[in-house]
């Protein structure tokens, strides 16, 4: 791996990474990859996020779903931990709260496979910096 030796290097690297990086790294046809992000901060882990992450990994392997599972930090929804964000290419990301093993099955079977929304969605209750700017 090359060191970043200038601001240009950094910018180039950022350009190269446009799109979904984890997918790019792990898949040959990233545009079809589904991304499942499990909030793995201490609070999420305490609420069972690690089990949820493992359940997703097993489930997508078993069902041969073109998805990758990664960890991320706290999404802030402490009242609904463990929380998981699912990004299906071409669709808005969806966050699910109170995820457990049964919910993992449901998310994969219904939302990911059939594209059907299910109970337990957490509406995005905040603005990103960009949204705030464009207000």
């Amino acid at each position: 791996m090359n060191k970043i030796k200038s601001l240009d290097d950094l910018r180039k690297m950022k350009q190269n990474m446009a799109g979904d990086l984890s997918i790019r790294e792990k898949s040959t046809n990233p545009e079809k990859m589904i991304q499942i992000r499990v909030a793995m901060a201490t609070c999420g882990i305490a609420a069972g996020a690690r089990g949820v992450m493992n359940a997703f990994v097993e489930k997508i392997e078993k069902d041969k779903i073109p998805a990758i599972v990664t960890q991320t930090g706290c999404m802030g929804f402490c009242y609904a931990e463990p929380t998981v964000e699912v990004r299906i290419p071409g669709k808005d990301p969806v966050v699910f709260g109170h995820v457990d093993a049964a919910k993992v099955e449901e998310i994969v079977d219904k939302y990911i496979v059939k594209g059907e929304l299910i109970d337990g969605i957490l509406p995005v209750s905040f603005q990103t910096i960009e949204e705030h700017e464009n207000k």
Partner: protein
Amino acid sequence: MAEYKNYILVCGGTGCRASRSSELVEELNKQLKIYQLENDAKVLTTGCFGFCEKGPNVKIIPDNTFYTRVKPEDAEEIVKEHILKGRKVQRLLYLDPDTNKHISDDKHMEFYKKQVRIALRNCGFIDPENIKESIERDGYAALGKVLTELTPEQTIDIILKSGLRGRGGAGFPTGKKWAIASKSVAKPKYVICNADEGDPGAFMDRSILEGDPHSVLEAMAICGYCIGAEHGLIYVRAEYPLAIHRLQVAIKQAREYGLLGNDIMGSGFNFDVELRYGAGAFVCGEETALIHSMEGKRGEPTLKPPFPAVHGYLGQPSNVNNVETFANVPIIILKGADWFSSIGTATSKGTKVFALAGKINNVGLIEVPMGTTLREVIFDIGGGMKNGKKFKAVQTGGPSGGCLTEKHLDVPIDYDNLKAAGSIMGSGGMIVMDEDNCMVAVAKFYLEFIVGESCGKCSPCRIGNMRMLEILTKICDGKGTMDDLYELRDLAHVIKDTALCGLGQTSPNPVLSTLDNFWDEYVAHVRDHKCPAGVCKNLMEYHIDPAICVGCGACQRNCPADAISGEKRAPHTIDQSKCIKCGTCREKCKFGAISIQ
């Protein structure tokens, strides 16, 4: 594949449920059936939209129509008009208070999203253990900009103009702090990140370190460039193993990419970061105490001046900022001082992260622009009071803060307003209390914490807080006098006046603010020997109402103190001299015959 044409998302947050959102869901399903649309539309219950003020909220997708104040009676119209005919129900759309026009879709009413994520911008978006995801979201771009395009003076100027103030509690202007440290001539200098989050219930900094460690590293390097330091130290509590792990990974990756180390991005600037582990003493959040702790000395504050900017770690000039403060820095550099200072109030710019907890529906980590009111935070974002109880008080600023009441709910949150109201911003703990909380007991709880966490260096904090605790204990035991109340107030003022460091100077805040705002409750304890909230055990008695008691014996069987007697099928009685006020009898009574008096 059974893909629905429409989804009707009904807020299932507790606030909306209290306004009959469950009934609404039932009614919507019923109407879908009546109009035979079950296969076209599906009703879903979601988490809280954070707009409880106008709840119950309903969102229809795919057209993102947002209805507010929807009643079960409105279900038919929604199904008939919107789902069947594709016509929006105008009267249920949100009415923009400024233009008085209906707003049809949620994209144009972003302001219902009261939170703005600046410090938390990457938390929950990136994999914190993958530096590339950080770079993809502009990680280290601010550092690159500073190193290649700006002088230290220009950079400090941006931070100064942005109006960023320290997020650790006291709210000292960050740019000013950097400017002072940059003027110290002695070398080496140190950049210190205070990650010793000690307020009970607060976890803002931990979440940032766990979710976005690179922003903190980047900001420290920027600070190092500004003040002329090559060494960064993060004082993180050892109780945060995951944060430590993620920091370690982040530091390793940043070094590998040449974003920490020598000659960063070809600028000739060197900077590296080391971790230091704290044992979790509350007082070590105070910067001089923190520095002593890092030096291997007892974690206790020393008098300022000299300030760390002149005489800090190992006697060298040091700049100490808290995690959240640092997390704001890179984005300010990228977006500019004007952008940042456009958010917030006259004296407090940007946003603040709060750990919202207590008797509230949506406990969580939130970030709101300065100037958001407590009411918006508690009743919208927080989803209102749990179990429909009455709001009583909100405690901000942790053990050093105060309890604010109903009358403060519309105060826009910023450093100065909270201080004027008798509390402090603190690091961002926010605990909501309801009618079941006894404010005397709350003050006592915080003092217990302070008595345990005071370093014991100065007499007012070491002994004074214990004496206040004793008086509060006496009051909670029903043995207090009116003189005790006056003594408590006097003692609190003296401790505030005379304690050595910020911990001691603010430790009487919970006492003073409850004395000010809940004087009647104190008086009730002292004069009437009653705890209105029914919390103080020595001030309450359990009684069995003979008119309701059927003599089932459940209470008698479960009483651990053998305090209940009575013949079968005849009313039972409680022997007050034996009762330990555990409340088991009341829980076990199926007839509601047992009450607290």
